[in-house]
């Protein structure tokens, strides 16, 4: 930072540094519209080939750089009907025709699978054809979601425009108590600021309680930046990031430049992790979030542990801590759909998966499934408590389904008792 001061350069946020790098400038100012080179374009079977292929053919255009494209089949797998078979077939045939080097078919959900293969690294600018693409921000990459038409523009030109965002820094002091997670931090923030509180700016998560989080817990924060209405959700990379990337087989990367300078212009909100309680969002908005005590005793029919938000290895471990040696309450369905094959197999090796199965869990495919209402949606009038990110009316199936959101601890505790429960009451 002294070198920054002596050179006379203005202090910059992490978001500004990443965008300056991607747009080939020394510095960028908040509010400027700039064109950035794209380091990675990720899309899935729903947003990708079935939409991109016809548009590319219509334009007679080609992919700008196959090595920078990653395709993941996660929304319509496993195929359940003729329509999903058609959509997935288009993706597989297009991947073959285009000779795409990075394709992950039925390996899990894109936001988890792609980082687990080392594709998202500090300093990159990435776009994803899915709204939870800010997940990549957990690695110190500027990553955000776009629709299929905008993705077409990226795939043809390798570039994308953006307006340099303000930074809203969420600074978390203290340490999370046992049974309280990144998911609770997010529901707390979304409840406080609302679903568009991020105003499509860059949110940055920082402070000792964030630094103490595992990489997967950090991914949960960045993932739900989407529900805060932020464009991206950044976390400055550190040794935790480096260790995860090394295990994922990523090439070494210089992490030193990727932090927010002291004195950079930003809005900071401060929180104390040590006083945070488990949070639950009631139907039909993630912003309808309050401490679990407000909803304690609400009967549930289904407990769902799934999605990129809430079924990573760390989430499965959390649920197992609650359920070890117990059975779910009579009449309650506990559904577990791990976020990736890698996480599922690691959970199996650790005995975590067996704990969940012994408790009565039904194991569902490692795919987006009921979270997006694409797989086995929830029926009429059913009450669900879920580790997923969204509980919009009709999101998980029937418009009359009532969906509550909570952490894996909270969802497992509800499965155990049959009603919404503070997980700290049942953690041994």
């Amino acid at each position, binding site marked *: 930072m002294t070198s920054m001061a002596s050179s006379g350069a203005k202090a910059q946020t992490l978001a500004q540094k990443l965008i300056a790098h991607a747009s080939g400038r020394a510095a960028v100012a908040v509010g400027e*519209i700039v064109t950035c080179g794209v380091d990675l374009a990720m899309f899935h079977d*729903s*947003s990708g080939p079935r939409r991109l292929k016809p*548009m590319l053919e*219509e*334009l*007679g*255009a080609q992919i700008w750089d196959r090595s920078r494209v990653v395709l993941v089949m996660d929304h*319509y797998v496993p195929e359940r*009907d003729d*329509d*999903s078979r058609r*959509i997935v077939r288009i993706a597989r045939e297009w991947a073959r025709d285009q000779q795409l080097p990075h394709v992950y078919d039925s390996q899990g959900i894109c936001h988890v699978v792609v980082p687990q293969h080392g594709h998202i690294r500090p300093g990159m600018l990435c776009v*994803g*054809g*899915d*709204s939870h*693409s800010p997940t990549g921000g957990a690695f110190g990459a500027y990553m*955000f*979601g*776009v*629709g*299929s*038409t*905008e993705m*077409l*523009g990226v795939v*043809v030109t390798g570039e994308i*425009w953006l307006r340099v965002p303000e930074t809203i820094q969420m600074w978390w002091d203290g340490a999370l108590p046992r049974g309280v997670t990144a998911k609770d931090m997010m529901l707390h923030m979304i409840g406080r600021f*609302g*679903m*568009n509180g991020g*105003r*499509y700016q860059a949110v940055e998560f920082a402070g000792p309680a964030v630094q103490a989080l595992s990489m997967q817990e950090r991914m949960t924060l960045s993932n739900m930046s989407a529900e805060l*209405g932020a*464009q991206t959700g950044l976390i400055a990379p550190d040794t935790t990031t480096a260790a995860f990337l090394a295990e994922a087989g990523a090439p070494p990367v210089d992490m030193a430049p990727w932090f927010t300078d002291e004195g950079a212009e930003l809005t900071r909100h401060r929180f104390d992790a040590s006083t945070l309680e488990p949070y639950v969002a009631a139907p039909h*908005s993630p912003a309808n979030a309050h401490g679990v005590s407000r909803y304690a005793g609400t009967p549930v029919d289904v407990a769902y542990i799934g999605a990129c938000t809430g079924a990573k290895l760390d989430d499965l471990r959390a649920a197992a801590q609650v359920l070890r040696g117990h059975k779910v309450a009579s009449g309650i369905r506990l559904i577990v759909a791990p976020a990736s094959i890698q996480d599922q197999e690691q959970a199996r090796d650790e005995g975590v998966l067996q704990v969940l199965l012994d408790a009565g869990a039904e194991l569902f495919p490692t795919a987006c499934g009921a979270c*997006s*209402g*694409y797989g086995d*949606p929830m029926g009429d009038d059913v009450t669900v408590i879920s580790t997923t990110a*969204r509980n*919009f*009316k*009709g*999101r998980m*199936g029937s*418009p009359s389904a009532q969906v509550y959101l909570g952490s894996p601890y909270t969802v497992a505790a509800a499965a155990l008792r049959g009603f919404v429960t503070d997980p700290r009451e049942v953690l041994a």
Partner: protein
Amino acid sequence: MNAALTHRVWRLGADVDTDLLAPGHAMKHGIDVIATHCLEAVRPEFAREVRRGDVLVAGPNFGIGSSREQAAAALVHLGVAAVIAPSYSGLYFRNAFNVGLLLLTCAEAESLHDGEHIAFDADAPAVTAPDGRHLACEPIPRFLLDMVRAGGLVHQLRQRAGKEPLDA
């Protein structure tokens, strides 16, 4: 501005999300089918009764949720001329212009009522209420206005490649 009040208002509340505009159960289909389910959970008659040139007027945070651009394309398919709201999801905002849907960001949008007729001017940009009040809207960057006038990014790219005539 003395435009005729030709655009009928469909008035919606705050936080209209992408799952209401393009329900998950319909997403495996093409835009023609998705459009028939648009807003079915809150305005079941909408897809059936909406006419070309109608406008949606909503509260804050229109389009929150998914990146599925069908949530904007369905409105284009149904002939909706513009959405008028105090604020949008940033992702929806980008998608809308990319698929040729005009969004007007208007702080006073909620003063308009269901069923009344209004005018709007995308260049000003402004809305004219039935009582003649002019409601100012936030400026739209020129390149986005050009894109939406071309019918979206794909049409614009085709025009630039000489594969499609420029509209008058």
